[in-house]
């Protein structure tokens, strides 16, 4: 009888083994967790992971906001008002999304500054820097498109000035302004276009680039600090 079923310990491992055999997910997870990183990295190398945390926070609060927000000139401001004043903890969700964006920009600067000062963009990590730089520019795009969505006075006029700035570019400028605003002025379609860019186009682009960025970091190994010496540790003695 008992030969029909394996012992409980093995039984518990069955689904794990099943997944591992078909995907290699378990050994991949083990590799990610137990891969070696330089022994002298510390607090200064935590900014990248903090940025991923803020990105996840922005995505989560953004999804919740999208459940209530309606991107039309008539309803946008009303739904923002309702989220802030009426919805249970709506102010917290909206506030964390709003302030999270500021914190993200500050962290991006610090992360980039650290990479710069440590020379961590040098061979063979040029592509890691380039993906990061593009992420930075796209995050600024997130800030710009998100600013209009509140649809209050300040958002409205700041967006007009911002779009007009794009419009001063030679040749492509006026067309770019027209495409951004979906016409000569801010209207119904401007809001839904900015909303679509803000919650579909830019976040997926940023998410994809973060994935590439991390892939490169894992593949090339974390950079040790410039003052690091290649000397044996006690373990080797």
């Amino acid at each position, binding site marked *: 009888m008992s030969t029909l079923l394996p012992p409980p310990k093995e039984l518990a491992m069955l689904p794990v083994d099943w997944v591992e055999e078909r995907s290699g997910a378990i050994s991949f997870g083990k590799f*990610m*967790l*137990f*891969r*070696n990183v330089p*022994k002298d*990295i*510390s*607090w200064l190398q*935590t*900014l990248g992971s*903090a940025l991923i*945390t*803020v990105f996840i926070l922005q995505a989560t609060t953004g999804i919740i906001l999208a459940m209530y927000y309606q991107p039309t000139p008539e309803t946008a*401001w009303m739904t923002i008002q309702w989220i*802030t004043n009426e919805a249970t903890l709506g*102010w*917290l969700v909206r*506030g964390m999304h709003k*302030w999270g*964006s*500021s914190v993200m920009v500050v962290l991006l600067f610090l992360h980039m*500054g650290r990479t*710069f*000062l440590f*020379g*961590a*963009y*040098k*061979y*063979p990590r*040029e592509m890691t*820097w*380039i993906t990061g*730089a593009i992420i*930075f*520019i796209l995050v*600024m795009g997130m*800030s710009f498109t998100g600013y209009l969505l509140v*649809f*209050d*006075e*300040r958002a*409205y*006029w*700041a967006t007009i*000035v911002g779009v*007009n*700035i794009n*419009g*001063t*570019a*030679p040749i492509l400028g006026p067309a770019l302004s027209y495409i951004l605003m979906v016409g000569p*002025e*801010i209207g119904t379609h401007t809001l839904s276009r900015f909303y679509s860019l803000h919650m579909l186009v830019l976040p997926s682009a940023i998410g994809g680039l973060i994935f590439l960025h991390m892939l490169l970091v894992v593949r090339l190994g974390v950079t040790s600090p*410039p*003052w690091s010496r*290649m000397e*044996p540790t006690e*373990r080797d003695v």
Partner: protein
Amino acid sequence: MPRLTARERREGYQREYAFQQRHGKPFFPHVVFHDTIVSLIVVALIMGITVLWYAQFGAIPTDPMAERTGGLLGPAYEAKADPGVLGYHPQPDWYFFFLFELLRIFKTPQLLIVGTIIIPTIWMVLLIGWPFIDRNPDRRLSRRPIALSIGVMVPIVLLTLTFYGSKVPAEGGVASTEPGAAAFAAGACSTCHVLANAGTAGNVGPVLDEAKPDYATALALITNGQGSMPSFKATYTEDEISCLAGYVATWSAAVGTTPGPGAATAKDYPASCEKAGGIFAGTPSSAAGP
């Protein structure tokens, strides 16, 4: 520092990578521990600012269309966007202040593109292409004097621009009683333009006392906008725009010369102001007025 050959460079990296594999520390628990602590601090910081932001709000306004005010950290929301509202302050979020300040520096129409397109484009190209510009293989700061000075200078420049970009327009003087002056001072014009007669000190756009646009130019600019200047078609009626254009043409031309009408092109000024009525009407000074 002598240039390394491609092979030396590759072998140097491989040696370092192999050393890291052999003598490094495992990602878990060391890095995971540091990362978790910092991430928790960051999330707590965001929550903390949000709570402070919420705590400084005024009461929910009884008027359903009104702004919900705040203190140092800003309002919950301003009044609903309305292109028909006279006064406006196009202040971007703080991380665009540097760009806003560039607008102020390159405010004349000929130079505008330097601030709006050329400098930002150069910055973006430098940012993305930096690994190809800095070919010095050394990573120690003591051996990278040029990179270090750039790395110190760029934040200083950006912080300075951000600081000055955050400043709201300076308080101007008192508006005259000429027709159009009060509307100019109270409306959107004052945010960006200096015009002595209206007592405004906005420093985003061109100084009108110096630019001295004629009536036709002013009319076209207010109606259609140009560069970063918005179009005010939806904000003002035709009479109101005509009044403002006439006012600007007349009183910018009057600066530096004997007071009086300098812009003969402003034919229907101040008649258009009287027609627009309200804040646009005024009492022309009989001595100096047109």
